[in-house]
């Protein structure tokens, strides 16, 4: 919002602070000046950012009011009379013309329209704006239209009250504020023909609507060069009805912005006068008195809302100590609240309102000037506070506490640290999560974060359960139509991005939330995805075994030893021959392996890509493994190698099972040291295995006879599954 410093100063004649000082002081009170732009002789322009709750400060007068409180200065009062700015003769003429019947206004919806003023001006001259209106519009880069329209915009800029001017001769009969009828049409000022909703509040004549109340006027009764007689509307509409209509018709206007945040119930007569004075500068006169229909229930909810209790004790309880040891005194609080437009009555002192003395300055540099005959000293002084009509955001005691902190200055409070006797509690899975992350990082995987959303096709392909993906109601894009049921769509996009940018060696992981269930209930689970291509992990192209090794390391972090790998029920996105699942207590904890070549082709991935998804929620059910030290043997280990030949159908798992079944305690470890297939020396359909075995006893040195006996047993079980010792 643009604000002219010179315009502010018109409302505070006593203001001596420099523009820079004024900008800083306002900003420290939450009336933020984001930029100060020099306009030369016309003084600077402030670019302001007013928070959404402070609709009262979204205009020049409102900001001037804030400045007046800061510096303890008097504000020029606003006038509801037409005399200001006009010459004496003109004033007499308009006052004389006030004779005659009042313009009829009927509010059919008193809960939605609390006040409606109407003023008729006759023989006006529609022409371009001149004088101060034209000048200020130029400085503010506000597009001038005509003196009538500009007058309403000027009024909004000046005091924040939206108004509307009708071509009186286009209206049939009086004004009726009513709900729209079903199917009723209105062409609004932006030229768009709209079908109204029965929930819309409209300003109508006896025949048809001429505007959506508080949002935008109608095309047919707008001001044109031919307009002779006008009707000026200044009204107060309920916040919710304006907001709903504005949303319904996608019409966010200056007027709706202010009404939906709560306008000043007492402003319409003042605004009407301001618009009229500007318009009458070019000629014309008022016909009949001002019509002012006021719904007292609405007034009781706004301008005359009941006083609220406020105590100084609450200020201290919520805000705490200030740098100044005296703290916030009763006098300070009284000065601030009265400056804001509140009327204070000391509790227990009857209802006579507190009359503030000359307003002391709140400028900290001049704080010594605070003195008041009625200064209260009690810490627990309490008041009944009548709230200003323009601050509908003030409703409760805490609102007044905030105002005191705000105007006093946040940075004048001390920095204290509260005492605390509680304990710090870690999240249940925090240690497991960091353990998994640490392992992955150590193994060379780099952490990435991808989108929470994925395309519907990916959701269907990667969802662990069919039909469990959750669609978005207003997706960011078509590719982001679903909540991700798996981290793999994101992982594959990230791998593709790297491969397409000539980063051929990639090993990424992501830990994040995946979503299941449906629109009724969404389940969230923690998951881990890994994905690799190229030489990211070793000197050669990444293989199934590299990924399996990582999975084994991860599972090895946890206490359970009942992990099992198989290749049952592989999902469609995995290569059927080069993939596996890991299970734990019968439940799948991970799928991993080579991305299905068809899927790789669909994604234009030319390289072999290895991926895996780990269901961390299932893994986290296990405790982290706690190392328990085994006593080191004092006796020499003995190594023996067996060169064996197996048919291709024999799996390592079968060999492993047999060796374990031997149950030889001295068989400390065994591993496949070398596997050869398709070599000259190997018969077709077979592979050779160099099986390395380590024997060691905890109690004694093994004798040669024992070792030979173990070896014979090993050879026998290997032969039982088709193995043959090579010589």
């Amino acid at each position: 919002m643009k604000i002219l410093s010179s315009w502010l100063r018109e409302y505070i004649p006593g203001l001596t602070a420099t523009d820079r000082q004024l900008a800083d002081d306002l900003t420290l009170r939450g009336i933020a000046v984001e930029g100060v732009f020099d306009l030369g002789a016309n003084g600077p322009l402030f670019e302001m950012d007013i928070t959404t709750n402070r609709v009262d400060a979204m205009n020049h007068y409102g900001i001037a009011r804030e400045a007046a409180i800061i510096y303890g200065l008097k504000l020029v009062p606003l006038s509801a009379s037409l005399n200001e700015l006009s010459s004496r003769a003109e004033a007499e003429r308009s006052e004389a013309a006030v004779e005659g019947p009042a313009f009829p206004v009927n509010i059919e919806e008193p809960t939605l329209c609390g006040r409606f003023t109407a003023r008729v001006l006759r023989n006006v001259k529609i022409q371009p704006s001149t004088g101060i209106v034209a000048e200020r519009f130029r400085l503010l880069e506000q597009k001038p239209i005509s003196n009538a329209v500009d007058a309403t915009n000027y009024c909004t800029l000046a005091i924040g009250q939206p108004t509307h001017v009708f071509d009186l001769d286009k209206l049939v009969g009086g004004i009726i504020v009513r709900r729209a009828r079903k199917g009723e049409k209105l062409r609004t000022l932006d030229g768009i023909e709209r079908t109204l909703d029965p929930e819309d509040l409209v300003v109508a004549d006896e025949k048809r609507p001429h505007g959506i109340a508080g949002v935008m006027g109608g095309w047919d009764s707008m001001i044109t060069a031919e307009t002779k007689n006008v009707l000026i509307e200044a009204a107060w509409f309920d916040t919710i009805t304006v907001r709903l209509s504005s949303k319904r018709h996608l019409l966010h206007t200056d007027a709706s912005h202010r009404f939906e945040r709560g306008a000043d119930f007492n402003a319409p007569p003042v605004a009407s006068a301001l618009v009229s004075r500007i318009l009458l500068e070019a000629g014309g006169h008022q016909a009949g008195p001002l019509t002012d229909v006021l719904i007292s229930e609405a007034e009781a909810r706004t301008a005359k809302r009941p006083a609220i209790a406020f105590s100084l004790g609450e200020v201290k309880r919520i805000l705490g100590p200030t740098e100044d040891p005296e703290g916030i005194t009763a006098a300070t609080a009284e000065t601030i609240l009265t400056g804001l437009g509140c009327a204070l009555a000391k509790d227990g002192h009857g209802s006579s309102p507190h009359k503030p003395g000359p307003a002391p300055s709140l400028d900290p540099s001049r704080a010594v000037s605070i003195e008041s005959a009625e200064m209260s000293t009690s810490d627990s002084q309490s008041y009944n506070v009548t709230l200003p009509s323009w601050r509908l955001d003030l409703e409760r005691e805490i609102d007044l506490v905030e105002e005191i902190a705000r105007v006093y200055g946040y940075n004048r409070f001390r920095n204290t640290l509260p005492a605390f006797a509680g304990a710090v509690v870690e999240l249940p899975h925090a240690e497991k999560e960091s353990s998994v992350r640490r392992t992955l990082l150590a193994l060379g995987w780099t952490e990435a974060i991808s989108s929470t959303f994925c395309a519907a096709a990916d959701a269907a392909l990667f969802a662990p359960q069919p039909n469990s993906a959750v669609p978005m109601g207003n997706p960011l894009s078509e590719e982001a139509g679903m909540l991700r049921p798996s981290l793999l769509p994101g992982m594959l996009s990230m791998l593709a991005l790297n491969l397409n940018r000539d980063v051929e060696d990639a090993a990424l992981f992501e830990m994040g939330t995946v979503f299941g269930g449906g629109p009724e209930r969404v389940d969230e689970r923690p998951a881990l995805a890994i994905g690799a291509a190229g030489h990211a992990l070793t000197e050669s192209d990444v293989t199934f075994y590299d990924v399996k090794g990582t999975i084994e390391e991860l599972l090895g972090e946890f206490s359970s030893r009942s992990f099992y790998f198989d290749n049952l029920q592989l999902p469609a996105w995995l290569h059927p021959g080069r993939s596996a699942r890991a299970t734990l207590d019968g439940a799948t904890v991970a799928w991993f392996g080579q991305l299905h070549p068809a899927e790789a082709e669909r994604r234009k991935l030319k390289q072999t890509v290895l991926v895996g998804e780990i269901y961390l929620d299932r893994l986290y059910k296990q405790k982290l493994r706690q190392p328990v030290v085994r006593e080191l043997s004092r006796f020499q280990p003995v190594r023996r190698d067996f060169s064996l030949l197996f048919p291709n159908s024999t799996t390592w798992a079968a060999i492993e099972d047999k060796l374990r079944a031997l149950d030889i305690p001295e068989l400390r470890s065994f591993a496949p040291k070398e596997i050869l297939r398709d070599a000259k020396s190997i018969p077709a359909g077979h592979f050779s295995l160099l099986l390395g075995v380590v024997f060691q006893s905890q109690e004694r040195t093994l004798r040669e006879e024992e070792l030979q006996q173990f070896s014979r047993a090993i050879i026998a079980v290997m032969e039982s599954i088709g193995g043959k010792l090579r010589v």
Partner: protein
Amino acid sequence: MSEHVSEQVLGDIPHLSGYSEAELDQAFAAISREVEASSAALSTSEAVEAFRLQWLGRKQGRLKAISDAWLKSAPVEAKKLIGQRFNTLKAEIEQRLERAGTSTGTSALDAEALASEKIDITLPGTRRRLGAEHPLIKTQNELLAIFARMGYSVSIGPEVETDYYNFESLNFPPGHPARDTQDTLVIANQDRKPLRDRLLMRTHTSPVQIRTMEQQPPPLRIVIPGKVHRNDAADATHSPMFHQLEGLCVDTNITFADLKGTLDHAMKELYGSSDRTRFFPSFFPFTEPSADVQISCPFCGGSGCRKCKHSGWIELLGCGMVDPSVFEFVRLKQPAYDPKKISGFAFGMGIDRITMMKYGITDISLMFSGDLRFLEQFA
């Protein structure tokens, strides 16, 4: 072994007069003097090798020759005494060799062999590829550690929230303009539900405040890290997905001054003890009073630079005292949150923004791209 150093011709075997200890000592002293004399000029590695062969040569070394001769003729009871003395003498010779070896560097043989093994030590070292932790996670852990030291436990909550927890219970009433500031991504097919039960992507981590308070009576100190989403257009500094860290402290007598002190302390921990904070009035529906917090620019120390737009200050946090209405919502489930008896403060910051500032990241989308050229810089 070496071929170009020939073994010396053996000298005479000294005569042994008797086998008493005194006679043996005398005879060994003579050999010792001979060793000393022949070791006088061990200045080159060739001389050292010659000395070694002269005395310790396996076949024709003088020591072996003498001991063979003496031991052969010695009576059994004297053999042990002679053997001990030969061991001492051998140790003496080895010591001389060692000393000589140290002073000439190493033997010519070793030096040459090692010279031929010389490598270019200026070539880059073999580096195992390390995984890089995501910068956001680094920052998040750093922040969690700071607040853990101040007594804050970690709380988390769902990324898909109900309207009630995301808005209503945080004092964003239905139809309130404050909702406009947080454009929301919603889950499909929610229209049939009452507004409060409709599901959406949480727009902030604040719902976890409510969820935690409903579970736990005061006193409470928690920080809430998490992913949030808004229906915002992406640009260099905005992403529809971002990460917040929220804090909440509730107890009897928690004041605005405590809020200021806590954040001032936390920022000093994050940016160093010379960092300063200043507070500006702001508006959030769930706090009152509300504040925006600026920190003195950690890049220029407050003198003004490009990163702080020459103001010396950077806006980093939103915060405020918990609004009594929020406590009233919590009280429906946890009566201990009586706003007349307790008070509290809440604060929130963007982990993404702090990360971007810290590492000089100028485009937020890089953090969510998986681009290794970017990520590997954090290894």
